[in-house]
Structure formats: C-alpha cells, structure tokens
C-alpha cells in the first residue's frame, strides 16, 4: 500500500493494486460517513467484444450495460443486497454511463458489512430467463419516462446524429425494442469479460481505516480465486470527422422550442498533455458561454431565449463531444449565434484568469465533501489513468498563451442541430 498526498488539499490517499488487478484508492477524511464506490470500465458504448477464451466477437443489444447494472442486484439463494443496505440504514445506488457502470453506498456505521455487500454485488452474478424477463418491464418504463421528457429526447437525438459508427450514439438504457433481445447468456458474456477485478476501480473515502480495509478486501478476494484474463478486446470503429446528420426536427405538443447543438471536435492533432487540453477547452467554453461572457449577457437580455445556453462536454474516442442546449420561443438565428461565438476564438487574459480563479475555488469545495472526493478520484483514474495529485499546481500552471494555441488548433465546424417543437409553429 502506497500513501500519496493531494497537494494543498490536506488529503492523503492510500493506493493498492491486488494480485487479481483490482485497483484500490482509500482517502480517510474527518467525517462520520464512509463512501465506497466500485466502477467497472464497461458502459453503454461497448456493443461488441471478445469474451475471455473466445475468438469470436460477441454482439450485444443497445442498453445491455445498463440492463446488467439492474440485474447485478438479483442473487441466487435469496441474497438481497438492497435489503442489507436498507437494514443497515445505508444509502446505496448504481448508475451506468456511456463509459462505465458504478455501484456505491454511504453510511456512518457497519462499514465492513456494507463493503462486503458491495463486493458481493459485483462478484455474484445470477441471470435467468425469468429474472431477465421481469426486468424488461421495469426498464421499459425507465426508457419511456426518459423519452417523454423533451430535453432528453433532444439530447439523445443529438448524440445519435453526431456520431456515425461509435456506439456512443445510442441511449444508455437502449430502446424498448433492443432490450427485448437481451438474454442471460449475453449478460454472462458481458459480466465475465468486464466485471473481472482487473477492469475495476474501488474508491473509498471518509470514515475509513486504510490498513484494516485493505486487509478486509484482500481476504474477501482470496476466497474467490480470480484467474488472470487476457487483455479485453473491444471492437474499434472508424469514425469520420463529419457528423452523421446535420439537422433534425422532432414534433411534440410543447409550448416552447428545445434547442440542442452538438459539436464534434477532433483531438488527435493537439500535441499536449490530454489533461491540460481538456482543462483549456473547458476554460474556453466558460469564457465564451459562461456567466461572465458577452454571449451570456446577450442571451439573458434577449426575451426570445428562455434559459441560458448551457454546455456539456465529454470525451468520445478521438473526439470531444460539446453539446449546447437552451429553450427558446422562436428558433431565429440561435444556431448561428452559437457557431459564431464558438469560432470567434478571441478572449482576454483577464477573463482567462478570472475563470482560473474560480476553478481553484471548485477544487477546494470538492475537497471537503466525502462524495466529491470519491467521485473526483474515480473520474481521474478512469479518464487519465491515475489520480492527479498535483491538480492544484497544474491549475496554477495553466496559462493564457498555451490556451490560445490549443483553441486556435481546434476545428469547431462539425455540428448537428436538433429542434423539438410543436407542429406548424
């Protein structure tokens, strides 16, 4: 076990990698609750892979990773993980994204019992025809609720139209039709491939004793005797720089128009540390679209625009997906305004420094919250390969001139537009 320090943030982190490959990060904090999260690097974006010891690719329907997340709570012999958490008064949940599936709990007491339940949750699969069929009705309702929401409908249409080949384009939960094709065999194939400890990260923060906890986890896995598996092979896709479809209009009985405008930004040409590139793009977007931008002021004063234009970004293979959304009375030239502002590429040093100052505040606030620290470690390990211990120094070292160069080198032209609107309006 190696002890490391989050510089300037008064936080120590204990790192350990077990023989079976599981990476563990423990950060003790002066709090009552302990928060533990285990993440597998398997999200909805993986739809073809080679299971261990098989030569052929297995194809799975859209929504399988999310379906598997639901089914991990079904156990043989009446073991009911949710009831254990409820009995212990713990808060627990799970979620699936395009990139990962995570399971977590938090509670101030019965830490080892709760941790054992978390490990049981991801190490004891049990899928049958009956329990798979039962879950289809539940997830179908989850999908329907999501598509009924015009904002979510606009979002999922937009990612579908941004990418041509990458499975990132499909909704995390899949479709009513696709989940009907999921079988117990497919779930076992996915489980045996992606839920091996070597493909997982366990992060624990808060009221926790690192030495005792590592011993507990080692003992737990000793009984399970995981065999090494070959490196996981997932299908690779050629993804063009252009978007799949330029524009789509969806008709709904709504009073306002929902606007979604996503940009597909190719990153491979940038010769700089990926972490820094990500921060520079985020800073640039905050300068151009955030609360101090001229664009924000203009939108705020425009009665046609009913909510500030917000943005979301995510890394997808060799690309950044940058998605702008808002609600308007009339479409007018909102897409052109976003395009022009994004491609203007001019910004002042004063604005750059102002955004940086606030980013430092964000890091400090994150460091006092048990779940905030946990999420931050988990995200950094899966996104960058390790914890960014010198995050504070890196932020301080970010500079205006380098940011200008990065932004200048990026191509913000490939985009897709989605409008949800009433017919004949």
């Amino acid at each position, binding site marked *: 076990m190696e002890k490391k320090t989050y510089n300037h943030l008064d936080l120590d982190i204990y790192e350990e990698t077990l023989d079976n490959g599981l990476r563990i990060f423990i950060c003790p904090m002066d709090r009552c609750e302990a928060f533990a999260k285990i993440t597998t690097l398997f999200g909805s974006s993986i739809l073809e892979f080679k299971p261990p010891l098989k030569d052929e690719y297995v194809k799975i329907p859209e929504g399988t990773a999310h379906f598997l997340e639901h089914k991990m709570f079904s156990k043989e012999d009446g073991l009911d993980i949710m009831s254990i958490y409820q009995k212990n008064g713990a808060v627990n949940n799970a979620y699936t994204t395009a990139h990962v599936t995570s399971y977590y709990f938090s509670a101030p007491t019965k830490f080892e019992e709760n941790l054992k339940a978390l490990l049981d949750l991801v190490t004891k699969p049990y899928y049958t025809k009956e329990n798979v069929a039962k879950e289809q009705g539940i997830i179908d309702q989850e999908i329907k609720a999501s598509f009924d929401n015009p904002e979510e409908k606009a979002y999922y249409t937009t990612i579908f139209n941004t990418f041509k080949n990458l499975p990132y384009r499909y909704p995390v939960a899949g479709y009513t039709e696709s989940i009907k094709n999921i079988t117990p065999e497919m779930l076992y194939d996915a489980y045996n491939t992606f839920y091996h400890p070597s493909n997982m990260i366990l992060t624990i923060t808060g009221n926790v004793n690192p030495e005792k906890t590592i011993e507990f986890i080692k003992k737990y896995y000793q009984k399970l005797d995981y065999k090494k598996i070959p490196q996981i092979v997932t299908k690779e896709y050629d993804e063009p720089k252009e978007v799949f479809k330029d524009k789509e209009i969806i008709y709904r009985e*709504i009073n306002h128009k929902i606007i979604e405008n996503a940009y597909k930004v190719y990153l491979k040409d940038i010769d700089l540390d990926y972490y820094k590139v990500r921060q520079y793009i985020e800073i640039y977007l905050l300068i151009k679209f955030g609360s101090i931008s001229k664009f924000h002021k203009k939108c705020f*004063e425009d009665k046609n625009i009913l909510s500030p234009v917000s943005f979301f970004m995510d890394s997808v293979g060799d690309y950044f997906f940058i998605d702008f959304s808002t609600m308007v009375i009339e479409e007018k030239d909102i897409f052109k305004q976003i395009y022009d502002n994004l491609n203007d590429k001019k910004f002042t040093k004063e604005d750059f420094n102002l955004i940086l100052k606030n980013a430092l*505040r964000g890091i400090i606030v994150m460091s006092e919250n048990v779940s905030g620290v946990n999420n931050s470690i988990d995200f950094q390990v899966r996104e960058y390969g390790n914890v960014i211990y010198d995050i504070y120094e890196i932020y301080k070292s970010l500079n205006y001139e380098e940011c200008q160069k990065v932004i200048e080198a990026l191509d913000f032209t490939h985009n897709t537009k989605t409008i949800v609107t009433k017919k004949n309006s």
Partner: protein
Amino acid sequence: MNYTKVEMNGYNLYFIKTKKFKTINIAAHFKETITNEGKIYSDVLRRVLSYATGHYHNLDDLNRAGMDLYGPSVRIGFLESGLDRTFYLNGSFVNEKYTEKGMNKKSIEYILSHIWDPYVKDNAFDKSVFDLSLHEYIESLNSIKDNPDRYAEERIWEEIDIRPYKDFNIDESIKFAKNITSEDLYEYYLNLFENNSLDIFITGDTDEKEITKIIEKIVKGHFTPSYKNRYIAVKPRNIKEVVETIDTEQSRLNIALKYVDLTDFERKYVSLVYNNILGGGWDSKLNRVVREENSLCYYIYAMRKINFSLAIISSGIDAKNADKTIKLVKKQLDKMHTEISEEDLARVKEIYYNALTELEDNQTSISNNVISMISSDTDSIEDRKANMAKVTVDDVKKLASKVYIDTIYLLEGKNLNGKENV
C-alpha cells in the same frame, strides 16, 4: 448541534461554529403568511434581486464581481411550508484562510448586497431588469405543461386544494403576473422589512464579533418577531378522481393521502415511519409489490409533506395498467393497518439515525438543521433520536386509520409501446 444567538435590532443572528470545513455559509430567512399573490411576487422578486444590485446594474458585472471574490455562491428563493412562506437568501464562500485576507468581509458584503442594495430608481425596480424577470417567470409557467412530471405535480396540488384560499392555477397565475408593475413589486419588497420576521444564520469557522459588525452595518428594517412555521390541519373528503390526457408515451399517476387529526408525536415521528414503510425506498411495500413483483413501473414512492398534512404517491406507468396499479396501491394502504413488522420498523429507525449522524458531514446540512429547529418545531437531534426510539409497530398501525386517500390524479399518455423510440 451548538449555536449562539445574538439579538440584533429587531432580528436574530445565529452562529453555528464548526472547523471541519473550508467554506462559510450565510443564510437570511424572511417569513410571512402564505397567499396566492405573495407566491407570485416572491417568484418574480427572487429573479429581480438575483440579476442586478445597486452597485452592479447588470448580471454580467455582478457575476464578474463575484468571480473576482473566488465565486461566492448566491441563491435567492422561497419555500412554502404549511401556512408560512420563507423568502431566503443563501450564500457560501471559501474561508479567506484558503484564498486572500479580507475576502470574508468582501464576500459577505457581496452576498447581502443582493437583498439590501437592490437596483432601484424612483421607488421602483429598474424597468429592464423587472421586465426580463417577469417575462422569465411567465414563460416558466408556460413551460410547465412541456414536462409531464412537473405538470402532474402542479395539477395534483391544485386538486388537493388544502390552503386557506383557492390556489391559482397556471392560467390564473399568468393573468395575475401580467398585471404586476415594477412599483408593485418594489412595494412588496419593502414589505420584507416591515411585515416579515428575519433570522440570519452563519455557519463555519468564523470570528463572531467581526461578522456581527459587518452585518449590523448592512441589515436594516423593522421586523416582526420570529415565530415557528404553522402546519395546515386537514379533513377527509370523498376521493376525487381526475383523468387528463397528454401526448406522451408514459402515464403519470399521483395519489394524494391526507393525515388527519395527528398528535404532535404522530406528526413528527410516527408519520415518518408510516411513510417510509409504505413508499420510502427499496423495501417499501409499494416498491416491492408494484415494481418488483409486478414490473409495472421504474419508480414508485410516497413523498411526505407533513406541514401540509399530506403524502403524495408518484409513479410512471403504462395507461393500460392504471387500474391495476391503483388497486395494488389501495391494497398496500390496507396492509398498513395490519402487516407491519418489527423489521420494517427497525429498518426505518436505522435510516433515520444514520441520517441524523451524517448531518455533521455537510455544512449546509448543519446549517439547515439549526434553521429547522429555529423556524419549525423540529426537536434537537438528541430528542429526535430518543423520540424515534419510542415509536412502536402498534403506533404505526394505529396511524394507518388516520390516513385517507384524497385525490387520484392520472395524466394519461398514449402508450405507444415504444414505437416512437426507435
């Protein structure tokens, strides 16, 4: 949780001292009796005060000034609880120990300026800021119907109709809002300092004397004496059934329950246990039966609104399953009279105790806990633990006979069986 109270000129200042956090929270709470009009005024006012101050005449300048102070967060809003409405200003900033000396004073001044230094001309709020805020408010009402969950929630409150007056519906609220002037709103704003009580709460590692001095200089007004929130007592009536249709895939089912003639102990503790066993979490009766045994929904839960003597059950289902779901819900309500186990009770108590313990981990929770003790009749943490320990299975079964279905509201979707999704 310990706090100290400083009696100021007509209002109270509370210091909640903790050294566990790197930030400082400040909350100012004005309280008055609820009215239809007050709700609309409050919603427009919170926007006007958030978008400009006497010193910074537009949002851009205001935001820039905030960022220069390491971005203190400022949130202005209001909450209705029983017969009372609290108009609040909540702010948070990084303690100057982690930024620069002098930042605590500047941050408090910045946060409080949103309320105590508004952008006013000739006894009215600045016309352009007012127009934008009013427009934004009216359009937010217009957009409620675009979101089926929000619309269903709004509609069931209209149908329950438990306030001392008839609630405005969406159209009535819009009609009223359209006639508000900037002068009217400014008059309502002045009312905050004449006919409201005021309590201010500071949480964090602070110097009480220094902060008292800063606040004393800024906060002016002739406030009414502070008082505890008053809950609304309700009476049972024949079940009201309402069905509306909407152009969506899924249907939303909301069922309102009334808690009638509860004792104080039942209101604070037994109803909480009752609600959790019925519809709070995985092991609740509703989740076990409607979701897990019958696969009818993705979510079903009961939300307790005890100051309104209510709980609202919510679920998303297929329209064709509405009757079946309602039957199952009624059956679980019947079971609450007889089928409550010691395990059910122990589970809810454990969740409750843990939640109280975890309050200390979050500065906002610490602050909210003290606010709740001062503003409502919430007991101390120790008393809450002791009282919860006294709740028995029989108490919960007995309470079941005081729970009545009031309204069943179904927002019926088209049930396309997923065809539109593909």
